Structure formats: structure tokens, C-alpha cells
């Protein structure tokens, strides 16, 4: 196995490991790093999904009878942390960002290839460390929010490892964010204007701004929390004069934008997928760009809506209510534009399109409950209940994870040169869509009627609805099987895809599948109209 560390050798294809070994190397190739992000993230998704299944098994009956109560809290803490920091954020940003952005700007690699590799290689050890923390004495059990004083008073060794792991993952995000901003701004092919960039570039630019502005705040907060735990300081410990609400402000200053760090790239990805399979230009490009930037600005000033029951003053509740609700406007613009993109198209009903449409339906539902949650009086009743669990999963699973699968179906031919099986893909979509809605839709009712979140035991009146939810979770787990079979079968014996099986216009399709190390033989193409369907290209079909 060759390790590429010399910049001049990096671009030399003959020095790269061949075949699948390439993906186990310390490669500086953005495409390899992208796939490394994806596969690594998917492995953590399987771990996080297993933990989710354990949670749903516990909740199939009202009593805490499947696992001890403290283990339940450890499992839900690990589940939340893995899914956010090791699955969704690395995949929608790191995996697709790395693979696609250099193609989209017409570059041969990212601006800082070594920083890029460092950003990825921080993830496996931090993830393993996080998982290993479960097996040390006293795993973290204060939830992914790690609110003090609970995180200070629960067993400390696991909590400290948890903090260290999240700090490293935050560092990885920041490195990635800096790299994306530099690549999009500085590495654009001469002649390629900003307003000609594919929408995913804009989404990643917005996301990276959020990452760079907000992640350091989380890092600083967690460092202060670790001081409280290790050195007995009193930043957040009320016994020593600390203020727990200050922790919440600092934590949510990152962790609310984190939702947009997860969904903005998904918005970008769906904007790439829909026009190709609907054979129509992306509707309202300019408003889509402005709505992304609107979401970035508003996303940074809405964090306190997570704290309406924490003792915030009235003016703050009013401001954060209005600001939060207004995010619905730029978000709504995007959804109307996507529907308008479908309208009048020649739509191929395939796995990528179905997952994208599933995303639209799920996300609209999650967005509506989000607007409701922005209203203080509404939020007070359902805060910290299963209503919030349901809303959050409609956004991050029904939204982001659906788009991850849609993207895999869409770009699999580019990455491997093979086509995924459509029948298995559609089966995967159907089981996932039914399972997801069966699992999370009933949880809105649970929250409204009195079931708090993060509980191992609950009022027996909620048992039936919880069992339906657990059945949905079982279906979601089963849905992974046809997907895995599909990928393994097609990598070995799949139908050859050709360079551009979707007849798409974005730059990554204008090279071979899989692409060569430096992306193109010769000069990168200048794509002025990445969504020019129905124009000069219509004759291609």
C-alpha cells in the first residue's frame, strides 16, 4: 500500500494503491476521502441504528425491563452523539462535499488536501474512542446535550472521553469547513461565476460558514465543562457559583445551527438530484441562493428557542419566537421551488427520485411542527417530550438521511461505474418510508399527551402507541438489508453504468466513471448552465 505524502506524487496515478485498497490509504485524493467519509459514516450509522433498536425494544413495554436505567441513558447518549457527529454531519458535509465540490468548481482537488485528510482521519479514532467510552467505568449518560450539573455529577471518566471525542470531531468539522470555503471561493475554474455554481456549492458555502462560526463556541464550552469536571472549577457548577443556563446558551449557539449544518447540505444535494431526474432546470436558482444565505443568518440567531422553559426573560422569548418562525420563509421558498422543478418535467420514477420526494414530504411535516415549536406557548407544553423527538427525527432522518440514500442511488454509478438495482432500491424506499412514518408520527401524540423524552419507563396508557413506534423502528432496521444486498451485489456484478447514465449536465458527469485521479483528462470543462435541461441539451435524449 502506498502512502501519498509528496504533493508532486499525489497527482501521479501510478503511485496510488489500486482497487479497494485505495480507500484504505492515507490518500489526498478528494474522491477517496469522500468515499472514506461515506463508508466510515455508514458503519457508525449501523452502530447508532443498533442502539436505536435497543431503545425501541426497551420502550416496547412500560417498565424498564430490557436494560438497567443507567445503561438506557448511556445508550441514548451514545445513539444521539453517534448519529449527529459520526453519521449525518460527516456524510452530508464530508462525504458528498469532498466528492463533489472540486468537480463543481472545476478543480483537481480541494484547496488544502492534507488538511482534508487530517479532517477525515480525526473521525475514526474519535468515533472509536466514543464507542469505547461505553465500556469504561461509567459511560456518559447525560444525553447528547450534556447539561450540567448532571454531566458533572454522573460518572466522570466516560463523560470526559465523550467531551474529548466531540472536541476532536468538532475540530474535524472546522478543518473541513475552512477547506470548503477556500475551495469554493479560490479554486473556481477561470470563467466560472459564483452564480453559475451548482446549488450544492452554495449549500456547502453556507454550511461551512455556520461550521466555522459556531463550532468553536461548542469547543470552548466543552473545554470549560471539562475544567468543571476535572479541575473542580465552577463555570457551570451551581454549587461553586456557576450558571447552568449560560451553558445552555453556549451549547445551543452551536447545536441549533448544527441542525442547519445537517440539513443545508441535504438541501443542496436534493437540488442536484431533482433537476436530473425531472429533466427540468432547477426552478428559481437566484431565490434558492438567497434563501440559503437567509437560513444561515437566521440560523445563528435562534438558539434560545431551546430554552423557553429555562427561565429566559419575556423579550427574549418574543425575539426568538419571531426569528425562529421566520426561518420557515426561506425554507418554504426552497420547497416551493423543488415542487416547481418537478412540475411539467419528464420524471423518472427511480430510487433517487423517490427518496428525494420522500424527503420533501417528511421535511415539510417536520418543518410545520418546527414552526409550531417556535411559538413559546406551544413549546412550553411539549418541550422535552416525545413531540420534540418526533419533530427532530422528521428533520434529521426524514430529511437528511432520506437525502443521503437518494444521493447514494444518484452518484453510485459515478463512484463505481456500476448501476444499483432499481427494484431493490424501490423496495428499500418503501420499507424505509413506511417504517419511518410508523415509528415517528405516533410520537407526536405521545408528547402531546404526557410522555417525556429520555425515559426508560412510562405510563402504561402509552404502551400501544409505543409498540407501533417500535414496529416502525423494526421496519427501518429491516430496510437496511435490501440496501446492503444491493450495494454488495452491484459492486461485484452490477450493470455497467457508462460515464453519464442519467444524461446529467453537472460537471462530475462529464468525465469517466469512476473518474481519474485528477478528475479530468485534460482541462476541466466550463459548465455555465448546470441545469440547462430542455435547452440545447434536450436533443441528447
Amino acid at each position, binding site marked *: 500500500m502506498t502512502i501519498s505524502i509528496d504533493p508532486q506524487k499525489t497527482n501521479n496515478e501510478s503511485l496510488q494503491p489500486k482497487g479497494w485498497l485505495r480507500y484504505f490509504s492515507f490518500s489526498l485524493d478528494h474522491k477517496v476521502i469522500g468515499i472514506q467519509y461515506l463508508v466510515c459514516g455508514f458503519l457508525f450509522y449501523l452502530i447508532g441504528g443498533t442502539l436505536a433498536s435497543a431503545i425501541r425494544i426497551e420502550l416496547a413495554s412500560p417498565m424498564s425491563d430490557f436494560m*438497567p*436505567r443507567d445503561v438506557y441513558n448511556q445508550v441514548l447518549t451514545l445513539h444521539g452523539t453517534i448519529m449527529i457527529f459520526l453519521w449525518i454531519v460527516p456524510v452530508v458535509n464530508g462525504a458528498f462535499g469532498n466528492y463533489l465540490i472540486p468537480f463543481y468548481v472545476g478543480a483537481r482537488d480541494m484547496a488544502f488536501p492534507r488538511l482534508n485528510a487530517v479532517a477525515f482521519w480525526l473521525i475514526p479514532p474519535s468515533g472509536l474512542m466514543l464507542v469505547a467510552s461505553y465500556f469504561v467505568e461509567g459511560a456518559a449518560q447525560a444525553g447528547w446535550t450534556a*447539561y450540567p*450539573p*448532571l454531566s458533572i455529577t*454522573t460518572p466522570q471518566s466516560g463523560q470526559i472521553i465523550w467531551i474529548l471525542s466531540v472536541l476532536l470531531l468538532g475540530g474535524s468539522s472546522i478543518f473541513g469547513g475552512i477547506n470548503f470555503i477556500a475551495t469554493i471561493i479560490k479554486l473556481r475554474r477561470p470563467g466560472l461565476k459564483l452564480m453559475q455554481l451548482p446549488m450544492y456549492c452554495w449549500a456547502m458555502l453556507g454550511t461551512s460558514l455556520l461550521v466555522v462560526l459556531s463550532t468553536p463556541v461548542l469547543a470552548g464550552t466543552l473545554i470549560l465543562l471539562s475544567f468543571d469536571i476535572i479541575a473542580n472549577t465552577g463555570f457551570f457548577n*451551581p454549587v461553586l457559583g456557576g*450558571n*447552568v*443556563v449560560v451553558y445552555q446558551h453556549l451549547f445551543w449557539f452551536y447545536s441549533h445551527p448544527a441542525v442547519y449544518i445537517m440539513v443545508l447540505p441535504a438541501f443542496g444535494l436534493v437540488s442536484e438530484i431533482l433537476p436530473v431526474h*425531472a*429533466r*427540468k432546470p432547477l*426552478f*428559481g*436558482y437566484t431565490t434558492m441562493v438567497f434563501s440559503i444565505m437567509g437560513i444561515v443568518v437566521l440560523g445563528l440567531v435562534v438558539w434560545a428557542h431551546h430554552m*423557553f*422553559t429555562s*427561565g*429566559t*426573560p*419575556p423579550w427574549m*422569548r*418574543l425575539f426568538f419566537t419571531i426569528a425562529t*418562525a*421566520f426561518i420557515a*420563509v426561506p425554507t*418554504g*421558498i426552497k420547497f*416551493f421551488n423543488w*415542487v*416547481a422543478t*418537478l412540475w*411539467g*418535467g*419528464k*420524471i423518472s*420514477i427511480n430510487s433517487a427520485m423517490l427518496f428525494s420526494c420522500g424527503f420533501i414530504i417528511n421535511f*415539510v411535516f417536520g418543518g410545520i411542527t418546527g*414552526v*409550531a415549536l417556535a*411559538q*413559546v*406557548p*406551544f413549546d412550553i*407544553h411539549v418541550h*422535552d417530550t416525545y413531540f420534540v423527538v418526533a419533530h427532530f427525527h422528521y428533520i434529521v432522518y426524514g430529511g437528511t438521511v432520506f437525502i443521503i440514500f437518494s444521493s447514494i442511488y444518484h452518484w453510485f454509478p459515478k463512484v463505481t461505474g456500476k448501476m444499483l438495482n432499481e427494484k431493490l432500491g424501490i423496495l428499500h424506499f418503501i420499507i424505509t418510508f413506511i417504517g419511518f412514518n410508523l415509528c415517528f408520527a405516533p410520537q407526536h401524540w405521545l408528547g*402531546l*399527551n*404526557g410522555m*417525556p423524552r*429520555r425515559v426508560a419507563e*412510562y*405510563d402504561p396508557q402509552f404502551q400501544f402507541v409505543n409498540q407501533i413506534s417500535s414496529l416502525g423502528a423494526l421496519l427501518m432496521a429491516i430496510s437496511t438489508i435490501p440496501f446492503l444486498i444491493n450495494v454488495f451485489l452491484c459492486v461485484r456484478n452490477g450493470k455497467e453504468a457508462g460515464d453519464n447514465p442519467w444524461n446529467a449536465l453537472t460537471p462530475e458527469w462529464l468525465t469517466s466513471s469512476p473518474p481519474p485521479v485528477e478528475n479530468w483528462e485534460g482541462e476541466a470543462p466550463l459548465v455555465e448552465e448546470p441545469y440547462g*435541461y*430542455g*435547452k440545447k441539451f*434536450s*436533443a441528447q*435524449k
Partner: protein
Amino acid sequence: MFNKNIYLILIISLVFSISFWIGFNVNLLPAEASINAPIYDELFKILFIIGLIIFIGMTIAVIYSLFKFRKRNNQIGDGIALEGNLSLEIVWTIIPSIIVLLIGLYSYNIYDRMGGMKELNHNHEMMSSNTEKIWAGISQTSDNAIATNNLSIEVSAMQFAFLFNYPKGNFISGELHVPVDQKVSMKMESKDVIHAFWVPEFRIKQDIIPGQPTILNFTPTKVGKYPIICAELCGPYHGGMRASIIVEEESDYKEWFNKNKKPEVNL
């Protein structure tokens, strides 16, 4: 064109009718047992109806597009090269903005009616006024906020129990007893980690934060026994941190109170 418009109007009318019918006829909330509850439910109904209209409308648009504009066998070529429509985009920016603004103002009004917009640490005068105020008070506050004409109770939260101190009776109870239709002021403190006081039937919730006493005021309206639930993750037995609030007639409450009260000891 005429037929298309008729169909569109019919579909929109149907979506509105279904949403309004469901909004007014399907009750997804628990019983209303405080003055706050019907005010809250009013907002819930409005949000639910608006949400349904948008969700059903968008879902129909997506599913309709998939069927109507699906690519038929052997069909070649692309769809129409429509990149945008400025007037349409302005319309669907302005309409949601207006809806969001109206919802925000309406919810402000609801919250104000629930008493939430009052600064509880500056409301000494208000508390002695005759005007009926319902407070889902969630501000930090001083002791002054507990009015003399309210039933005052001190709540201590700890892993994993609530304790209710009745200062006038000089006793502590594990159950919260309150008379129906009387304002109750609770000063809440945590002994260890963050807890939350939640009574779903009252539609109120307030975090109980160590080092920062908080006030929660409410007026129960229906006799009965309701659960008090800790909603903030507070440790391994978080799911078991529950108590009961018993709302009873004035006479029953007095009987219970007199049975439990202890004489003050003068040293």
C-alpha cells in the same frame, strides 16, 4: 383552462375543508384542567389547521407531479426549460411571510393572555390588582412575586422526587393538593440537577434550575388527580420521577390541609 381552474379551486376547497374539519373535530390533547389549557388549545387548533393545509397541499402537489409528469415508456426529450417566474416567487415569499408573522403575533397574544410576558420580578403591583391574570410564569423571580392572596407553595425537586412545602401549614407533602379555581403560586428550587415541573393537563412546564429559584403560577379548573412529570433528563431514574397533583373542592382541600398542618413552634 376554465376546467383546470375549476379543478384547482375544488382541490383547494377540499384541502381547506378537510383541514378545518380535522382541526375542529380531532382532539389530540389531554383533558383541559387549568385556565391556561383552553387558551393553549386555541393556539394548537390554529397551528394544527394551518399546518394541515400546508402539509396536505404540498403532499398532493408532489404525488400529483410524480404521476402526472412521470416519464412514459420510450418518451424522449426534456421537460420545459422553465428556470423561474419572478411574480410566482414573490407570491410564495410574501404569503408565507405574512402567515408566519400573523402566527407569531397571535401566539404572542396567547402567551400574553397566559401571563407569560410579565416580568415576574417586577410585578408586585400587578399581583395585588383585581384583574384576573393567569401566569404560566417562567421567569426567574424574587420572593415578592408570590402574592399574598394566592395559595403559596414551595417546591423542592431532587433526584428523583418532588417535595411540596406548605409554609402556612408548616408541613411537607409528597403529593400536591390544591383547591379548584384558586390561583396557586409555586416557588421552585432544585437541590441537585436540572428538573422540570410539567402537568400535561395544565399545559404548563417550567425547568427547576439549581441556584436559580423559579416561579410557576397556575389556576386549576377541574377536580381530579393529574400527573406531575419531570421532563428534564435528571439521572437514571428520570422516568420514575413523577408525583400527583390533586385538585379538589375547597372544603376537601381545607380538610386535607387541617389534617396535615402542624402548629408553629415558638422558641
